[in-house]
């Protein structure tokens, strides 16, 4: 799982529980991953699989009703051991986060320049003038036209694509070593998404920032990832280098996800009609009623008695390619297309 050198961000056995009505609900169940310098790791999964909660757990941004255990290390330093003021110095500095909805994550009553300058002042002890200068420079870096004018504007004066670019500018203002991006382009139109993804790739090439990109979109994964973690119902079910994952997925859930997505250009095939989409029957289990054994078993066409009774361990089936499935060798057959 780990690369040769020490990873920049290392997460081990992360477990996040929420206590609700006296019942502890486990949203993330034993997640481990590493990201190295200049690397992009994508975490994929559908709503409720725990991918966003994982990022918030790492940033320690969850409400007090949550219980987070596990070890999170940044460059060998244990983030869990930090006090809240110490953690505040890490956030937005060494580790930054971009959220899906820029409108709710930007402060509506102060200018975007102020918001970026504030971070620079806080973390680097710069003056306001230096902060604003950095803000303008960052807005230019994320290709906002007329940054000198935009820096004095409020979030509502910007379009959705520009707000997301402001979020990225703010996240990168203090040159973080790790960037956690939670569905950064999901709310955007495709033409703007293409611009933002290109921007993130360019910035990574320049600064060597490690990126953890959380998404549900396999197209975004194919474009951005070096390595991929697939999550289902709070657990990691597969991890592989991106090429290997698409070439030969080793978990029925991954196979199902790939089969359920229509492909652009599908009507241009010889038959002229797109294939029928594969379905993953049923729905994601509720946190309150997690199935025993493999959590995907109730929806899996390959499931047998053992799957329903025993949870399969993550195993390295091929070099660097891990999956948690008793039947990983037959995972490719797990396509469910009913006529």
């Amino acid at each position, binding site marked *: 799982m780990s690369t040769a050198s020490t990873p920049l961000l290392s997460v081990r056995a992360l477990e996040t529980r929420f206590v609700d009505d006296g019942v502890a609900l486990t949203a993330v169940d034993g997640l481990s991953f590493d990201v190295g310098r200049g690397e992009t790791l994508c975490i994929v999964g559908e709503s409720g699989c725990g991918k966003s909660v994982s990022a918030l757990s790492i940033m320690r941004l969850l409400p007090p009703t949550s219980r987070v255990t596990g070890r999170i290390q940044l460059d060998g330093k244990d983030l869990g051991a930090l006090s809240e003021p110490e953690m505040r110095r890490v956030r937005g500095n060494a580790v930054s986060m971009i959220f899906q909805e820029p409108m709710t994550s930007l402060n509506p009553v102060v200018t975007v320049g102020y918001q970026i300058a504030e971070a620079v002042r806080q973390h680097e002890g710069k003056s306001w003038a230096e902060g604003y200068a950095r803000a303008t420079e960052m807005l230019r870096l994320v290709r906002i036209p007329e940054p000198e004018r935009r820096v004095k504007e409020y979030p509502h004066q910007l379009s959705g694509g*520009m707000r997301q670019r402001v979020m990225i500018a703010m996240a990168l203002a203090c040159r973080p070593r790790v960037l956690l991006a939670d569905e950064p382009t999901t709310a955007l139109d495709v033409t703007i998404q*293409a611009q933002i993804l290109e921007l993130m790739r360019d910035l990574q090439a320049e600064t060597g920032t490690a990126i953890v990109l959380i998404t549900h979109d396999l197209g975004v994964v194919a474009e951005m990832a070096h390595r991929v973690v697939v999550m289902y119902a709070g657990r990691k079910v597969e991890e592989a280098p991106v090429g290997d994952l698409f070439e030969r997925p080793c978990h029925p859930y991954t196979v199902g996800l790939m*089969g359920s997505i229509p*492909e*652009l*250009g*599908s*009507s241009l095939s010889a038959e002229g009609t797109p294939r029928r989409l594969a379905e993953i*029957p049923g729905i*994601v289990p509720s946190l309150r009623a997690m199935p025993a054994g493999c959590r995907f078993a109730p929806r899996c066409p390959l499931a047998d008695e053992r799957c329903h009774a025993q949870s399969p361990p993550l195993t390295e089936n091929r070099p660097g390619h891990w999956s948690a499935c008793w039947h990983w060798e037959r995972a490719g057959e797990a396509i469910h297309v009913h006529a």
Partner: protein
Amino acid sequence: MSTPEAKTPLLEVRDLVKHFPIRKSLFGKARARVHAVDGISLDIAPGETLGLVGESGCGKSTAGKVILRLIEPTSGSIRLEGRDITALGAGDMLAVRRQMQVVFQDPYSSLNPRMPAGEIVGEPFINYGIGGASERRDRVAALFRKVGLRPEQMARYPHEFSGGQRQRLGIARALALGPKLIIGDEPVSALDVSVQAQVVNLLMDLQAELGLSYLFIAHDLAVVEHISHRVAVMYLGKIVEIAPRRSLFGQPQHPYTEALLESVPATRPGLRRERKTLTGDVPSPIAPPSGCRFHTRCPYAIPRCSQEEPLLHAVGEGHQVACHLR
């Protein structure tokens, strides 16, 4: 337009315009207008799916609502089965609505949270005075089965259903009165991909079984390609290109269509296209650019593009494009 002339199209929309006035104060004079839909024409044949794509703010949703007459058009005409419904009063529209139904993006906000699912789906029967209580119940049960829900679930409330099941409820309700046309406004956009596939398959099965026509409004190009027979691309209130699926996705003609298709992430790693990323944002629909509305972002624009508006013209079998350069 591009459907064979032999058959009357089910839906014919001509020069449809919807401008929203912007007023400074409540009783003030309109000082500007949002050109949400600015003269679109389209036909849908019986049993056909027309996809309508474009980015946020291009007017695709407004177009759907105006066609349904949920919003009154500023000008233009809408004909359903040859009958002009543009100016029909509320009473006459009641009959028309049996033929033309809608499925919205967010199934949660379009289902009454205090009504059991069975009543939600059966409400159209009450509104139209169809059948007695027991007949209505049987019909609702049949609709539940048709969309892949169990009749036992009729007593449950919307919050007890998953997102995909709620969208099935919305579809069941739309089907209740046996419509010929369903307008889907981003009907699968809010769903997880595995569930989205279930609903897309359901919509296609229902079309095959019932001969429905769809106006499928969406921004996801791959889904639109999958489900549509023909596709229209909108930009700032105008249709810039309309064509059968294969020629639109195989030989896109309009620079905007090209850019849209190039922006979609490749589905396999290593296939990342060398793309000409569009720069900038969509201009404001309050003051759309002169001439071709795309000229401010078009990599091929020539002086003529900012002066003269290009009209839709045929470039192939059923393939029309509004561009001076094609």
